[in-house]
Each structure stands twice: as C-alpha cells, then as structure tokens.
C-alpha cells in the first residue's frame, strides 16, 4: 500500500488519513454511478419507432403535416415474430422469464416518436383474441379526429366491450398550463374460432385512426384491457414496458 509511505512517499499521518477519506468517498461515488449506469433503463427499452411524414393534410385545425405509424399486436412470440426481450433477462422475474409463450405485445416497438402539431394516422394489425374490459369507457373511441376509428374499413365510435382485445391509450402527463393529450382506441378482437394461417397467426383485424399531436412533450401510453395475469390480470405484460405499454415522445 503506497500510502503507508514504504514506497518512498513520506506522508504525515493527517495527510494519509485525509487521502484515505477522499478515497473512501471516491469509491462510494463510483459505486453509485456504476449502479445507475448498470441498472438504468436505456438498454432495456425497445428501439425508438419514429412516425414517417408523408406530406400534409387538411384538418379541423387547418393544414398540418401528416405522418403515419404502423403497429401490430401479436398474441405471443413465434419464429416469425421474436417479440420483445423477455423481462426475465432484464430483472430475472421467473414468471416473465418462463411464461412469455402467452404474452401479447405491440410490435415492432412500444417506444414511439411523433412530430409535434401534426396529424398522426396510426394503423394497427390486431392478431389477438378478446378479453372483457373492466370499464366500458375504454370500449369507446376517444380523442381521435372525428371521434371514430376505422375497423376493417368501417368507421365506428365504439365496439362491444366483450369484443375488445386491447386498447391503445395515450394519457396526458398533465401540466395545468398545457391542455391534455388523451387518445384511447379499443382494438377489435379476432373471433375465437378463427384458424391460424401460415405464419402461425389468424387473419388480423385492421384498425386505423388519426389524432392530432400538440406541443412537444413526454407522454406514456398503455393498454387498458386486462390481458396480463395476477390480480385483475394487470400484472405481467400489463405492467411491463415493451409489451403492453410504452412511451410517446412528441418532438
């Protein structure tokens, strides 16, 4: 130990103590910084999926840039669709590590990035079966341009509560100053008797809806239809980013 002074460096007792104190603090700082970097979520969230701008569109708020996003909801991973990293490999939850076979998820990503003050048209291909929503409020369409969503070409204001597979629900991260950003669209379920096709999934339901983004900000979205497990089926996928919930960054 060089501080003992054998290595030619002669240090007074006080100076030695001082140095060792600083060293202790330094080690502590390293430990904290290391844990933050190691446990931080950056490498844990799926890659960003940015909306592709395809020109402009006329909206109630006049002429706005127009962008589109395309998502799919798969009932479970398969050879063709690997699905997100099982949470288990991140935080070692045996249940999620051992039971992804039945875990539905949004694909290709749940980390969305949308342009600010523009019209967003989102298309979702929904491959999953139905579960009943707890609150019929989420079987209705909210926050889209004309309050409707297009289900397989047919515009509807709401769908059967028993026929909801999932919902896509952005909710505001409220500042009193900024007005809310709330979009909630129920996803139509595929009939239970539908038979699987070559890719191992049934014929999807196509849902399309448009909404207008406001000023830049950070928002979160999640599914409001109980499709996980645990108490009221809100454990598991329902409580994991990358599966049934994610973030929306408006830039």
């Amino acid at each position: 130990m060089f501080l003992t002074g054998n290595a030619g460096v002669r240090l007074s007792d006080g100076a030695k103590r001082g140095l060792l104190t600083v060293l202790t603090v330094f080690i502590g700082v390293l430990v904290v910084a290391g844990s933050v970097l190691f446990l931080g979520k950056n490498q844990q969230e799926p890659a960003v999926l940015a909306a592709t701008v395809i020109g402009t569109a006329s909206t109630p708020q006049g002429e706005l840039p127009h962008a589109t996003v395309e998502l799919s909801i798969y009932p479970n991973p398969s050879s063709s669709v690997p699905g997100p990293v099982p949470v288990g490999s991140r935080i070692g939850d045996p249940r999620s590590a051992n039971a992804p076979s039945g875990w539905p998820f949004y694909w290709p990503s749940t980390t969305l990035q949308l342009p600010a003050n523009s019209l967003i048209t989102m298309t979702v291909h929904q491959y999953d079966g139905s579960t009943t929503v707890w609150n019929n409020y989420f079987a209705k369409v909210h926050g889209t341009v004309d309050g409707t969503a297009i289900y397989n070409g047919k515009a509807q204001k709401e769908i059967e509560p028993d026929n909801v597979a999932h919902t896509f629900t952005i909710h505001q991260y409220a500042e009193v100053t900024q007005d809310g950003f709330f979009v909630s669209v129920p996803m139509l379920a595929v009939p239970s008797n539908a038979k699987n096709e070559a890719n191992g999934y049934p014929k999807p339901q196509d849902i399309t809806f448009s909404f207008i983004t406001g000023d830049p900000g950070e928002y979160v979205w999640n599914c409001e239809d109980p499709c996980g497990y645990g108490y009221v089926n809100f454990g598991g996928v329902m409580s994991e980013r990358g599966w049934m919930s994610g973030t929306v960054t408006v830039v």
Partner: protein
Amino acid sequence: MTAVIHEQQAVPQPKQHGKPGGFLRHTNIVTGVLLGVILAVATYVIGGLLVPWGTEDSNFAQVGQEALIAATYAAWVIGFMIGIGAFAGPIRWWLGHDLTHADAEYMAGKDQGKWKYWKYTTDHKVVGIQYLVMAMALLGFGGLLAMLIRTELGVTWAEVFDPNFYNSIIGTHGIVMVIAMIIVVAGPLGNFIMPLMIGARDMAFPRLNALSFWLLFAAVPPLASNLLLGGIRDGWTVYQPLGTQAPVGMIGYQICIITFAFSTGIAGVNLITTIVTMRARGMTWNRVPIFVIGILAAAIMGLVWFPMYQYSQVLALSDFAFQSSFFIPQNGGSVWLYENLFWLLGHPEVYVIVIPATAALLELMVVFLRKPLFSYKIAVAGFAGVVGISSLVWVHHMYMTGWSPAAGYPFMLSTELISIPFGFLVLVMLGTIWRGKVWTRLPMMCVYAMIWNKIIGGITGVYLSDVPVDQYMHGSMFVVAHFHFMLMGAGLFGAMGAIAYWFPKMTGRMLNERIGSIGFWLSFFAFQLTFGSMFVAGLQGQPRRVLQFDNAFNVSNWLSTIGAYLIGVGMLIFLYAIITSWRSGQVAPSNPWGAKTLEWQTATPVPLENFPVLPVVTSDPYDYGVPDPYLAIEKKLSDENQDVTAGAR
C-alpha cells in the same frame, strides 16, 4: 461476593455429552449458508419436477410458481438456521442434555478468537458487535438505494430507471432502512451495553440472543433478492391488493418480514426479561440508567405489536401464493383490513426507532454536561406515556383512506395527546442542558442535532396530526420529509451519537473525532437542505413515490438531490472514521469520559463474564455536579430574612 465464581465450580455438573459445545463445535456461518442454499435449490428443483415448467393457467401464468418460490425462500431460512446450529438447543432440551458450565462457556465464545463472530455465539458482547456490523451494512445498502432514488428525481427531464424498477427501489429502500433503524441502537447497544449497565453477566437467555441475530441474518437475503425477482413494486408498506399483482420478488419481502418479526419478538423477550430480572443488587427501579428504561420501552412495543405486521404478511403471502382472499375485494377481502393490521405495528414501530436513540442521548448528556439528569421521573413518565399512547394512534396513517371518517375525531385526539409525553423528554433534555458547561465532543454535538431535528419534525408533525391539513399533505412529499426528520434526523443522528459514545467500550479504541465530526456535520447540514426542499416540493403538491412530475417541482427536487449526495459523502466520511478507528485507533482507557454508569467501571476490553465480581449499586448513576451556587445565595438571603423578622419581633 467473590463466592459467585467459586460456587459455579461447586455446582455438581451433569454428564458432559461429547466435547464442550457438542454439535455447535462444527457449525458456523459457512455451514449455515451452505445448508441454506442446498436446501433452497433442492426445494426449487423438486418443486419444479412436481409442477413442470410451461404448465400455465388460462392467463399463461406459471401454475404454482408463487408457492414454489415461497417454499424455496422458507427452505433457505430453515436450512440456514439448521446449518448455523440453531436447532441444537431445542433438541438437547428435548433429550434432557442441558448445557453444562463448560458447554455454556464454549458457546459464549471462550478462547475462540475472532472466529467466534462467525458462529452461533451466545455472549452478549459478540452479538452486539454482530448487530452493529449488520446495521451498518443495511444502512449502506439502503443509502445506496436512496442515492438511486434521488438520481431519478434529480433527472427531471427523463426516466432514468424503468418505472417498475424505480418502484421496487423505493420499496426496498424503505423497508431496509426501517429494519436498519429498528436494530441500529437496540441491537448493538441494547445487547452489548445494556447488560453491562445493569451489572449482569450476560442476557437472560443467551441462546435466544444468538438466535435473534441469526434470524435477522437469514431474513436479509430474501429481501435483497427481491430486486432480482421483479421487485416489490409498491413501497415499503406494500398495500394490498397491489402486492398480489407484483412478481414473485414480493415473496422475498414477505418471508423477510415474517422471519424478522420472529427475530424482533425473541430479542424483545430477552431484553425485557434481562432488564426486569437481572439488575445488579441495589439497582432499584429509580436507580436504573435511563437508557435501560428506553430499551425496555422499545422492547415492549416491539414485542407486543410486531406480530400484527407479521400476520399481515402471512395473510398477504397466503393471498399471493395460495389465492386465498383476505385482501382481494372480489372474493370478500378488504383493503382496510391490511391497512389496519399494518399500521397497528407501523406506528409503534416509529417509536421503537426513536425512543432508544433519545434515551441513549439522555444517558450521555449528563456525562458531557457534568450535571445530573433533570427530573428522572419525568423522563420515565415520558417513556411510559409514549408506550401507552403509541398503540392508540395508528389510524392517523389512515385519515384519507375513507375507513370510517368518524374515526378521525378520536384518533386526532390521541395523536395530539402523544405530544405531551414526548414533550416530557424534550423537557428533560432542556433541563439537563440548562446552565450546564458543555464538553464539546462529538457525541454531545449529536444531542444538539437531534433536538434541532426534533423541533422541525415536531412542528410538521403537528400539521400532519390534524385531519383537515392532512387532507392536503397526506401522500405528498411533505410526509416523506417529515418522517425522515423523525427517523433519520432524530433516530440516525441519535444513533451516531450513541455509537460514538460507546465506541471505546465496544471496540477498545477511541473514535477519530476529527474525521468523524467532519462527516457528521456535513451530513447534518446536507440533511437540512435535502429534506427542507422536500418539504417545499410536498407543499407545492408533489405526490410520494413518483418518478416524473410537473416542472413546477423541478427546483426543489434538484436542491434535494444535491443535498442527498452530500449526505452520502458525509456518511462515507463518518463510516471511514469508524473503520479506521476500529482498526488502528488510539487505545481507549476503561473510562475515557469519566462516566459513572456501571459499564464504564469494568475493564476494556470487557472480560468474558463482564465483572470479576458483581457490583452492588447504592445510588443512581447521575450524581454529577456541584451544589447550585444560587441555592446557597438564596439560603443566605432567607437567613437574613429570618433575622429581619426576628428583629421586628
């Protein structure tokens, strides 16, 4: 009196079964951990065979997964306790092979050097040191988690951690710190110092003493492992039914609490029995050092109320692993049942933390002021009052739950009444300080720190005890800042003072006060910054346990985070002072402070049976000080007065 030792040899010894110590000669922490891990793995594998992987219920959850994990954790605890040798005692009792004197001496760690700290050693001094190290380790772990929390809250523009992981961090930080604070004074000092203080040779039940520590040791790994198993995602209170939604990490928490409750209960039995039955001859109840009274009070509260918490976790585990329905409303469970069971311990537990620290500081004040304790009886009355009322105030944690709004009236009453006995303790502190010459050493500085923090914690507590105000502040950062002022500001800074005071007796070396004070004062002032600005955040309306919030709260959170980092630095410096002094500090005389309590009258390091001969007490340990000069003046005045009246006659 020297006869005592002689008699011990005179006592006819029963047949010695094997070498002294018997089975315990072969057990130590290594065998314990080995057996615990082996048993846990075996349980997990065998259970996995019974319920093969991929067996999923309609929701694609692993069938029987929770029960399996619960069994695994239980297997760890039981295996460890077998391996450390905890069951040797009961089996010997069952066979009638009670301990001979030789056995007892071996188990007390006679002639085993440092190795005795890693064994099922019954000597109260060994257990005290074990508790001290364990408490410091837990504080370090909890402190690291605190740094992570403040990092997340300081980075106001983005999420640093996954929200679930953040929730797990705050939960784990909470419960780790609560456990650490419960043991940090009553563990090391209650075990090491208290028996010396009352002039006993050991605790009443030495083997239970070792048992209580090793149960605590066995309880920690399940708790820490919850972070690897999905975490406890709902704070240290783990309100149900959110708990039943969490991943299996929750079971780690529940097994930890169930085990820790056994540990606390056993320690409580031991402390109470020791204090009541083992005081030195002549130590009547009005001569007992006040610290002992404080430990007694804490032990009583822990012993009586901890089972409530324990059973709340037993029932929660039953809900989680076996789908029973104590807290599942669909099946007739009630969320209010959990809240009541939890807070029935949850509030007394606050006093279990604060009371021993307060009592320790009362004990050392007299030494550094060279004054007797101001009205001992009032202090005892204060402790008694707190113990009495503490069991009648738990609902003030539930004002806003909607559980019987009418209950707000009586419980607001009891909550504000408890400030009177607590005021007694402040009176004793102030009365002792009054007109005293302060010997400015580190332990005494902790007294000032504690009184200051208690003032702030007290006034904010006055706000929170009031239902209408609580209607705004409940569940906000204000509450967090308030109980940190009580638990950390009063509890931890008090504990630092107490440990600094008894450090020479426990380790045989003086604490390096230069470095120690730097760390102490840095953390004290940083503490004010951290939680002062946290008060502001709460008043502005920031809820607890959020990882993102309105920009309105940014500034106060930035300040709070800076302060938290500084606390961390200060604590590290203090820790360094402790470690370096322990290893190479200047050797301490047997009574460096010139104190009059019994623990300072015996040698340092303390011999195996504490006292060569048991002392006899003839007065209370507080007769410091010189006659009050003003009394003499008054005497003179009154005498003159007498003459005057005489002359008039």
